């Protein structure tokens, strides 16, 4: 049954009040947000007043007839349970609803590679964290305010991160002696003080769900599987969420099983009503909509956005997109999504292996399509010889690497940025390719589009780096005006009269891109391949001077891409004490950390690199305008090494390789140390 734990019978002013105080520092700022372009304009002070008032009123009364409502400007919730408990679905539903209600939101699904690890065990715990707010946010948050733990194992894994005084919702039905033992607790954690310091709400989700579904004809197992929806209903009441979007989504998802739809929705509504009518839930919380820039929005995950960017690029180029791919976590969703776009002329080829996948993509590009291959780090390793062929044959090719924790199989569902050097240098010979990285789920759209544009304009392979955190994370995406996306000009070599010899390596003098000669075009017969070729004619050549020339030309061609991409800008002033560089998915945590420190008066700016090869033209000069450059990366300092080698600047690495994204506070702590040491050296302003 349901009870407050160990005498904590009222909502204390603790957790959310503290959050507000901190957040006020973070969000009342003058510098614009890098992602959304506006600062927060909400009535923050009055929000704090309202909350304190509400807390006092609430804390002084145990009456439940009139439930209190507090306004908050942000909340972090983490759902945790068995892999089979439906935590990802629950989190996803909360996210969709919340996005539709106009909040800014960021999510972080964190799940094991096992599809169904043994029930109730620690390795089987799957979690979904989401943070939603009434202002512009950059990360899914560090520690959760609310933890929903469906079993003792989920509690064991996640409790340590729950904020002190945070709300802990436990499913008391899963605290049998065996469950407790499987979670490696010696005694029931509810009885030995383990949970003191948190506000515990226990609900027997199984009994409650069963009760709610008593009238349905479903079997016991199917009823039990609705308990996540019961929990979702409770959360919907607690946070003033609208149930309608979830009703629509569940109806769509199970449209062939009306009884399942009915049961899920009944469970959700029962959970909502339960929270509203019983006395344990004293307070509901309201997070008003965020002040996002004007526009049309859709909530999007990184893999989805990247997929749409590739499709948009192909359409703007007037080419058929050909995907060669082999399933691999966490990239498979791109294959799934593209395979549903046949109506847009997208060809998907699920190959026998990673090599065949890239080979077919190269073949398609050779034939005049846009060849794309999607994979993760181990797949890139297998594809590297073929990518070298595309370098040599100078064909457009987009290679997507959704990075995961390595080496070898590593931790497939955990995130890392350690494939950068592989993307840059992981091929035999001097084999330069363009490399760019997505920094947020929504950013992945333009990154996909840019990859297509550059691959076609420069006749080169382009490697797109994403990672598991971006791939599965989501955020609101301001939809682009399709008509304003640039058209990508593609010119195929025109037919030639018989008797004239076609010159496959004749180049555009500005870009150095060679001509794209589609087989089937009269008069363009020629031979290309992996053997070194004489420039212009394309004949096999072992000539020393020609090889030097071709190696230099291929390098120069990739270097020329810098003329076709935007220079970098800074978040904050373009000179000062510390410049924090970032690439890829660290953007959110770096942004939050830097904004925090800026508010405290520190001279810290940030700069985010979309292009890693070539590097932006203005980067070196920008770095020189700061006393110190630091670079947080989820690897052992790979970009840091590249920049030190290239620019002879003493870039300091902030490295983390534990399979998890940076927390904002981790970066703040390291930057504070850095600022302190500058101060000690007497060089700070």
């Amino acid at each position, binding site marked *: 049954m349901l009870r407050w734990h160990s005498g904590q019978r009222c909502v204390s002013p603790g957790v959310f009040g503290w959050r507000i105080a901190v957040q006020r520092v973070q969000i009342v700022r003058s510098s614009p947000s890098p992602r959304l372009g506006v600062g927060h304009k909400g009535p923050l002070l009055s929000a704090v007043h309202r909350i304190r008032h509400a807390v006092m009123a609430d804390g002084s009364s145990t009456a439940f007839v009139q439930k209190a409502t507090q306004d908050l400007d942000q909340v972090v919730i983490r759902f945790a349970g068995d892999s089979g408990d439906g935590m990802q679905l629950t989190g996803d539903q909360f996210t969709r609803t919340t996005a539709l209600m106009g909040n800014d939101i960021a999510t972080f699904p964190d799940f094991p590679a096992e599809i169904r690890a043994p029930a109730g065990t620690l390795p089987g715990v799957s979690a979904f964290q989401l943070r939603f707010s009434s202002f512009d946010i950059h990360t899914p948050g560090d520690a959760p305010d609310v933890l929903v733990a469906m079993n003792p194992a989920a509690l064991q894994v996640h409790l340590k991160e729950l904020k002190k005084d945070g709300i802990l919702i436990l499913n008391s039905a899963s605290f049998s002696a065996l469950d407790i033992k499987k979670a490696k607790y010696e005694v029931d954690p509810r009885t030995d003080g383990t949970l003191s310091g948190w506000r515990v709400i226990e609900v027997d989700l199984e009994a409650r769900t069963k009760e709610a579904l008593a009238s349905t004809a479903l079997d016991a197992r199917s009823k039990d599987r609705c308990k996540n929806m019961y929990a979702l209903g409770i959360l919907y009441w607690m946070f003033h969420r609208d149930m309608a979007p979830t009703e629509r989504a569940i109806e769509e998802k199970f449209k062939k099983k009306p009884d399942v739809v009915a049961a899920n929705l009944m469970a959700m509504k029962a959970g909502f009503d339960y929270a509203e009518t019983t006395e344990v839930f004293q307070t509901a919380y309201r997070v008003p909509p965020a002040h996002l820039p004007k526009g049309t929005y859709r909530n999007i995950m990184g893999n989805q956005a990247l997929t749409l960017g590739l499709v948009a690029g192909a359409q703007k180029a007037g080419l058929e997109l050909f995907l060669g791919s082999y399933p691999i976590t966490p990239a498979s969703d791109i294959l799934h999504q593209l395979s549903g776009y046949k109506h847009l002329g997208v060809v998907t080829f699920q190959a026998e292996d990673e090599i065949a996948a890239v080979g077919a993509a190269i073949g398609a590009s050779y034939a005049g399509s846009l060849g794309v291959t999607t994979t993760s780090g181990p797949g890139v390793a297998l594809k590297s010889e*073929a990518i070298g062929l595309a370098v040599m044959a100078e064909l457009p090719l987009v290679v997507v690497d959704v990075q995961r924790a390595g080496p070898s199989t590593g931790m497939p569902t955990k995130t890392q940025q350690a494939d950068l050097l592989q993307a840059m240098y992981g091929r035999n010979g001097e084999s330069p390719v363009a490399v760019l990285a997505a920094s947020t789920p929504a950013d992945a759209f333009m990154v996909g589009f840019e990859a297509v544009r550059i691959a076609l304009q420069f006749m080169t392979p382009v490697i797109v780096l994403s990672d598991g955190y971006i791939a599965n994370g989501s955020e609101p995406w301001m939809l682009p005006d399709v008509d304003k996306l640039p058209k990508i000009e593609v010119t195929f070599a025109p037919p030639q009269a018989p008797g004239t010899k076609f010159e496959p390596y004749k180049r555009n003098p500005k870009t150095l891109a060679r001509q794209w000669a589609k087989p089937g075009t009269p008069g363009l017969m020629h031979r290309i391949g992996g053997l070194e070729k004489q420039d212009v004619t394309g004949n096999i050549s072992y000539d020393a001077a020609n090889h030097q020339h071709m190696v230099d030309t291929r390098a120069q061609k990739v270097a020329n891409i810098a003329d076709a991409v935007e220079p970098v800008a800074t978040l904050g002033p373009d000179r000062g004490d510390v410049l924090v560089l970032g690439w890829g998915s660290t953007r959110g945590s770096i942004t939050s950390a830097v904004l925090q420190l800026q508010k405290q008066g520190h001279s810290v700016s940030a700069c985010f690199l979309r292009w890693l090869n070539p590097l932006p033209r203005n980067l070196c000069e920008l770095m020189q305008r700061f006393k110190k450059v630091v670079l947080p990366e989820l690897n052992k300092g790979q970009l840091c090494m590249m920049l030190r080698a290239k620019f002879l600047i003493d870039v300091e690495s902030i490295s983390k390789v534990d399979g998890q994204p940076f927390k904002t506070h981790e970066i703040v702590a390291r930057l504070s140390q850095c600022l302190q040491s500058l101060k000690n050296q007497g060089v700070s302003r």
Partner: protein
Amino acid sequence: MTTAERPVLQKKDYKSDQDVRWCPGCGDYAILNAVQGAFAKLQKQLHETVIISGIGCSSRFPYYMETFGFHTIHGRAPTIATGVKVANPALDVWVVTGDGDAMSIGGNHFIHLLRRNVGLKVLMFNNRIYGLTKGQFSPTSEQGKVTKSSPLGSVDYPFRPVALALGAGATFIARGIDVFLPPREEVICKAAAHQGTAYCEIYQNCNIFNDGAYKGITEKELREDRVLYLEHGKPLLFGKAKDKGIAFDKDFRPSIVSGADLARAFMWDETAETPAPAMALANMDESQFPVPVGVFRRRVLPTFESGIRAQIEAAKQKKPQTLRDLLYQGEIWEVT
């Protein structure tokens, strides 16, 4: 099309301006010559023809043909060719490969190409040796082969490429021999006419590293007794006077029949649904039986690329969608 748009081509028109750089006396010359002859016979248009190869001596082939050519990487020609054919099914795409390229490093792609029935023609030059790397045993070398990398003789059992192709579900399988001109050219023409994957194994002599590998078959005086010409709709007969035949027992074990038993010679049907007779021929011991050449199997099955294109066309008809509609779908909301 008028003849002005499709000029009549001579055999020489298929030759590129590049010098052929195989070793003098290599069997590849004869195959190149036969392919050029077959292409002239079929009036293949240069700009519609693409030849894709992997790595090895055989894979230099595209450079010598005045068509589109792509000399790719070791073992991967079937993958690149698949991409080309699916991207543009109108192209006539040929894969030229060797026993090392197709059976060893590219073995996986080889079997998957066959099971998919992509409309490619695959010419595999089988010299039973690694030539370009200067003489190591290959996956088709006989057991006990003494080479630089197997000084005491190779321990590996060899693949029988035709049996492998049958196992992988190939819809067209044929065999030719480099020095036998008429049957080889005919095999190439038949392969060209096949809709799905047409696999041709071509016995080819490497006169540097494995000279005489097929001598016991190809010598003029032995040929008629050592070669079994597979002729559709005719019994399996061989010998100068066609006085010997191949018969099968109920388990498809072969035997040589003659005299009064000649009538028991198996009636060859290259279109047979069951692969059993072809498998029996593919596995016949070359030291005991004649070597079959010609078409082992020819079955009509829709091609991979036609299946993919059909799905795309149907989807386009059923659900036309603009880019804007694609992006603006699902749950969207306005911020004003």
